[in-house]
């Protein structure tokens, strides 16, 4: 994974293929009629099976970058390639398909549907994609995050850490190539947060899933293979371990 703020990407040192590549990506929003550049000429490549942490102050563009990488949004200029496919070449249905198959999301506030049971929450991405055997896959994932016994509980019957583990199981249920995590420990105490980080690290190591995580936490950043520091929508520094 290479980066250079405001410049063309450099080639990766290894020959591992990239899951996501961003090429001079700009994302502008309009706020009160004025353009606001949330991401400003970022070039990045995330190799398969790597754990990348995005750090920086609030509003520096971390979440916007996650959304661009996760095919949730189109760049204003530049190109985002997800598993080799440029997102700008896809229509809304194409982006949806891409998300269903390649991307999993983990949120700071867990975002479980309160009306569905734990196992139903986990199987939801597969059901939305119209896949068979969703229940079996959901139970497997719950077993993986060690919550198999809680499948029939409702979200409000779980602790914060358990909820985030369910959210992780849900993000993994369709075997995505890329996992995007936005402040996954932001709503958890430090002990529980550590457990979640360990779990995320395990995913990358055991499942070979790429992870792009936006975080304020130094502990979280310390677990990553690559640390990308962002400032004012640009990549300020890249630290590889």
């Amino acid at each position, binding site marked *: 994974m290479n980066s250079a703020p405001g410049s063309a990407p450099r080639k990766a040192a290894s020959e591992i293929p990239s899951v996501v590549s961003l090429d001079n990506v700009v994302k502008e929003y309009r706020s009160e009629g004025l353009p606001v550049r949330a991401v400003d000429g970022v070039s990045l490549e995330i190799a398969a099976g790597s754990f990348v942490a995005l750090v920086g102050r609030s509003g520096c563009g971390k979440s916007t970058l996650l959304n661009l990488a996760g095919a949730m949004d189109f760049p204003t200029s530049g190109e985002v390639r997800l598993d080799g496919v440029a997102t700008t070449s896809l229509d809304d249905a194409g982006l949806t398909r891409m998300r*269903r198959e390649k991307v999993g999301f983990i949120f700071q506030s867990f975002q479980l*549907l309160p009306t*569905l049971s734990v196992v139903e929450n986990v199987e939801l991405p597969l059901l939305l994609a119209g896949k068979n055997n969703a229940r079996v896959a959901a139970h497997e994932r719950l077993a993986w995050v060690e919550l198999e016994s809680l499948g029939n509980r409702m979200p409000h019957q779980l602790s914060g850490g358990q909820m985030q583990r369910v959210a992780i199981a849900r993000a993994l249920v369709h075997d995505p190539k890329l996992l995007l995590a936005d402040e996954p420990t932001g709503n958890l105490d430090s002990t529980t947060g550590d457990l979640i980080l360990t779990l995320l690290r395990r995913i990358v190591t055991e499942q070979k899933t790429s992870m792009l995580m936006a975080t304020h936490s130094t502990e979280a950043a310390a677990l990553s293979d690559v640390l990308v520091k962002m400032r004012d929508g640009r990549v300020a520094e890249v630290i590889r371990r």
Partner: protein
Amino acid sequence: MSRALLFYRLIVRPLFREPLRTALTVLAVALGVAVVLAIDLAGNAAAGSFRSSVETLMGDSDLEVTSTGGVPDAVVGTLATLPYSIRVRPRIQDFVTVVDSGQTVPLIGIDLIGEAADSQVVSVSNGDETLKNPGDLEGVWVGSSLRAKPGATIRLLMNDHTRDYRVRGVFDDTAEGGGVVVMDMAAAQRELGRVGRVDSVLLKVPDDPPLAEWQKRLGDALPAGIVTRAIGSRTSENQRMLAAFRWNLRVLSYIALLVGAFLIYNTVSVSVVRRRAEIGIVRALGASRGAVLAAFLGEAACFGIAGAVLGCALGRVLATGALKLLSATVQALYVSSRPGAIELTFTSLAAAMLIGIGMSIVAALSPASEAARVSPMEAMARGQREYTARMNKGRDMLIALGLAVGGVMCTVPHAIAGKPLFGYFSAILLIGASALAIPGIADYLLQAFSKLLQRIMGVEGLLASRSLIGSLRRTSVLVGALSTAVAMMTSVGSMVGSFRQTVTSWMDNQLQADLYLRPAGTVASDQHPTIPNALADTLARLPGVAGLDRFRAYDISYEGFPATLGAADFHAVQPFKKSAFLSGRSASDVYDDLQNHDAVVVSEPFANKHHLKRGDFITLPMGERQVRFHIVDVSYDYASEAGYIVMDRATLLRYLPDPDPSNLAIYIASGADLETVRAEVEKAIAGHDILIFSNRTLRSEAIQIFDRTFAITYALEVISIIVAVMGIAGALLALVVDRRREFGLLRFLGAATSQIRKLILVEAGLIGLLANLVGFTLGVALSFVLIYVINKQSFGWTIQFHWPTAVLAGSLLGVFISTILAGLYPAQIAVGLNPIEVVHEE
């Protein structure tokens, strides 16, 4: 001032952020208020027109002398020669049709010479001077609204003949409320075939002694069959007769308002749920519980005020249409009436405003009190409210059961002062039972069928059912509103459908003749123009005619209510007629009892209204005598709510020797050709204005009148459904706003926009299905209350229950489709949400 500012900022301003939803809620209230106001205004206008032209044309009389079949001229002479200082004004009154315009107007015969001193017809008329010549009183004087000019010719249809009359003068008919034709008494008697008698005599008596004493004195001086009553009694009778009809219509008009109340409840509930955090903050900052309560009631009042103002304007517009429908019904079923002007008075406006605002505030009381009870800490806890709703399901089901039992028990007591108050109370209890049972029913059904829904509808079915369970309170209120409207549709539809089928079956028995004849002109239950009996004799002798029934009808008053006294040729029709009687006896047995006796059959509505039964006796004024009649049976009858008293023609002629029949029914001989007989009949009646109806045409005309009568009930039902569906649309919009984060999340998890749209539409469809299910069940229960309690106690008709399957299936499907359509716009809003924004907003 500062409180008003806070109220504006915290309550009013947020309403403008969702203009469509706010508008839908206001419109729901507006429609409810409009319907109530429209029915009230139209009812007043229709009922206010009963004051007859006879009374208004010279309005200072005190008493009216009448008799069945007319007051003999001799009685007028008796009155004029009594040793009292009373003014005597004989009157002929009937209806004529102005042929050119087709308008039916009252015809009044007055003694133009005798009343020349104070008749406005004479004094104001601007016609020729011939009135000063007592020898020439031919022609007519017409009201100005008929737009005829003095000296012109006007063609009038009365009884069975049409003739040209010279317009002798035109007078201002503003006080009469519409066109009136006046003739001299003698001319009117001649033209209507009433020589030797008048229809009534108006009396002006001295102030002392009191009116009651005058009534007694005159009663003593006149023959027993002559009735003396206070002027305006007939108007009161008509209004009393119409009271039940107006009362039921008014109750029906409140349904749309009730549905609107559900929606106000929902809107304020949503508002409270959304602002729980705000409630916590303002409570923490020092707001009292009373202030929170006042704020939410104030929000409801805002909806109420806006809705009521709009509703008043809309109500005035709807009143015009409602008056047309009401007048047609009143004319066909009750009494000849001329709709009065629709008067939007301050009182009616104030009442409508009060109803709209009051209903809104009452509907908001429960959620507003709940908001006021919340402690600041509790206000921050999300989901508590729904949890409460879940926890109360069992208790609510028990209360619902209690209410349902109460509802059933309320069907037992009799009417109070002619009003089926317990019947209404039963309906209210059943609606309450249904509303309380809905959370339990909805929860059970959605839980039980969520897997099935998922199999049929995909993941959207699962999500929709779980979402509806998750917000059970909101779901229940929406289902409650729509199911109330559906229940009313089902029950009124079943009642009307059953009634229609009952009337059709009744007509199959009752209308056995092949041809029916009646004088041309407008049909009304209190107008009985006649056909010359000699003509009837001619028809009876025609080849192919096996039987002829000469039916004569008189409009009478019995115990303060109008009724129709009739006589039929039972001996002539005995082999043909198959009237059905409550006793179950055969028609021929009953007809045998009627012949050669002072015996009558009364119709079911008449018997119920006056608490009479087979074997009782009634006394009727017949000419100059009071005659006691034995009730030999009670007949099923659906022709008039006022009711019939029917005797044999021979009996009637013994007391009222006027042989001219009002209607004729011809039975053709077996083997005779109907068209040939009809041609013969047409030839025989040439020169008379008489209408001929075949059996099929008469039935079809009767059914048309029936359908027109109930058109207004259908209109009210449709408005209730519209209000409910608008509420669903508004509530779904609120739901989209409240669950935008969930929809955004689903997009993150791979949901396509089409899946989000489908999810909303499935939710809308499930609400529609639940409402149809609950509403249909409640509607069936209500239809039994309507048919067997409210209808029976109000109108006295026995209605056999029939399922109007096609109408009900079509209506329920229509409601279901409408509900899904109501979800289209909210679904579009949901699809247009930016998932990134909504998922990350806190």
